């Protein structure tokens, strides 16, 4: 295996209702991440993009995103119809094959372009589930009910996760919602989509994230303290919601075990939790100890769900905790699909 590290991260403004086109939104963030790394775009030898055509309503909309990169002289690029974290995974593999040394990875989405609760139904089985238009909130509601009934997550844990996300969001600043409410205060609020209260449901956002990853010597030149990707794994649960146990995330647990999350202390874990109950499900799956690990100190996707960018942002924020020295060992997690269907887990280290 080649040593590969995250060396730069940039997150565009987390907003709702941007009046720019998706391509115009990408440009400043790509420029910023290059600037942070102190490299030119011609130094990048692989570009990888994550986005979703169902969000823009334009088939092959990702092709126009290449305009944002400046494709002259010709560049080598690829796209995944997934969160940018999957683009990072592809770029990491590309580097492992020896075909690239420096890769720029980005993810973008404009939730305000349509009804994402409805659009995300199209991730489901196209014959038996998608035509029913279940909606993301209802599907996640099934998952939350299963977890609450099985006792793998409690209502209080959901409120505590939301309370902390809102406080951390206030510190981060680049989020859509924030607040200082205690878990008790949040629990006193009305249930609006059982078992969810409003704060259990993500604030849908427009946004762009970009990350640069590089091999050993290059990484050391670019970053003072690169965030070395010591291990990364991607696992998938069955697509059919009825064919798996929604009270736990089996695929996240396998991925965490494969990368050895539990083998040493975890200073920071950036978890891609879009609904509040995901946090405890992931703590269970990754066997994290909240008393020893700072859980999603960025606030996470619950307070600014930049679809197709939020997972990559978790990698970026976890890497930042390594860059700054506030963590020596961090875990980055990203998910895609309903009820934590797909999970990527990575261990990042400063040394």
């Amino acid at each position, binding site marked *: 295996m080649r040593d590969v590290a995250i060396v730069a991260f940039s997150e565009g403004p987390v907003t709702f209702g941007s009046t720019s*086109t998706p391509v*115009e939104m990408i440009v400043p963030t790509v420029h910023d991440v290059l600037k942070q790394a102190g490299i030119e775009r011609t130094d990048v030898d692989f570009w990888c993009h994550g986005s979703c055509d169902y969000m823009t309503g334009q088939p092959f909309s990702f092709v126009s995103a290449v305009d944002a990169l400046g494709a002259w002289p010709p560049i080598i690029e690829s796209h995944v119809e997934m969160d940018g974290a999957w683009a990072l995974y592809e770029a990491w593999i590309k580097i492992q094959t020896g075909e690239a040394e420096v890769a720029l990875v980005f993810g973008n989405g404009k939730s305000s*372009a349509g009804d994402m609760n409805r659009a995300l139904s199209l991730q489901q089985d196209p014959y038996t589930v998608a035509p*029913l238009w279940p909606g993301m909130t209802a599907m996640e509601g099934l998952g939350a009910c299963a977890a609450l009934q099985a006792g793998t997550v409690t209502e209080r844990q959901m409120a505590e996760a939301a309370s902390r996300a809102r406080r951390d969001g206030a510190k981060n600043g680049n989020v859509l919602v924030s607040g200082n409410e205690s878990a008790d205060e949040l629990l006193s609020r009305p249930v609006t989509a059982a078992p969810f209260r409003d704060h259990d449901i993500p604030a849908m956002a427009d946004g762009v994230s970009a990350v640069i990853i590089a091999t050993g010597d290059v990484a050391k030149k670019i970053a003072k303290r690169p965030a070395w990707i010591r291990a990364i794994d991607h696992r998938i649960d069955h697509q059919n919601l009825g064919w798996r146990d929604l009270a736990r995330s089996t695929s996240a647990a396998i991925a965490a075990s494969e990368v050895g999350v539990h083998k040493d202390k975890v200073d920071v874990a950036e978890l891609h939790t879009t609904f509040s109950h995901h946090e405890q499900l992931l703590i269970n799956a990754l066997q994290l100890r909240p008393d020893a690990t700072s859980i999603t100190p960025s606030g996470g996707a619950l307070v600014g769900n930049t679809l197709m960018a939020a997972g990559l942002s978790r990698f970026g924020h976890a890497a930042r905790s390594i860059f700054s020295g506030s963590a020596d060992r961090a875990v980055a997690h990203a998910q895609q699909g309903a009820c934590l269907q797909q999970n990527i887990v990575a261990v990042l280290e400063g040394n």
Partner: protein
Amino acid sequence: MSEKTGDKPLRVRMPIGIDYKWCAGPASTDYLTGLKDGRLFGRRCPVCELVYFPPRNGVCARDGVMLGESVEVGPKGTISTFCIVNVPFLGQTIKLPYVAATIILDGAHLGFSHLIQECEASEVRMGMRVEPVWRDKAEWDYSLENILYFKPSGEPDAPFDDYERHL
């Protein structure tokens, strides 16, 4: 929505539909509001200085930078390439044969496609100078369809050097 007929399988129709709100963005907004007033606006790349008409996604695809100043172009232009359409198809409204051409408007560096009318298809050539024929002003909208077609302007042909780099 559904019908059940004896022992036959239940058939259900579930049409797929999602509504979208598309924002044109600053560059295309100039372009579209210009068209509404019968004017043609592109944007200049601050790096390569080429003028994009239409301004596409608001970025220069060569340089990967946001396009800069708004530039009024045209209305006359030069045909860089063209195609004579001889094949009839369903819903066709234009008399065959007709010409679809790539036109480089004066002051712009990116070709766009439009119809050529008011001349025989056989007369159309690379370098031919053309000008737009606009729809009745009352019908103008935020659309390039405000221009019905382009017709020969009667000027001498542009030299090959003028459009060679845009082929």
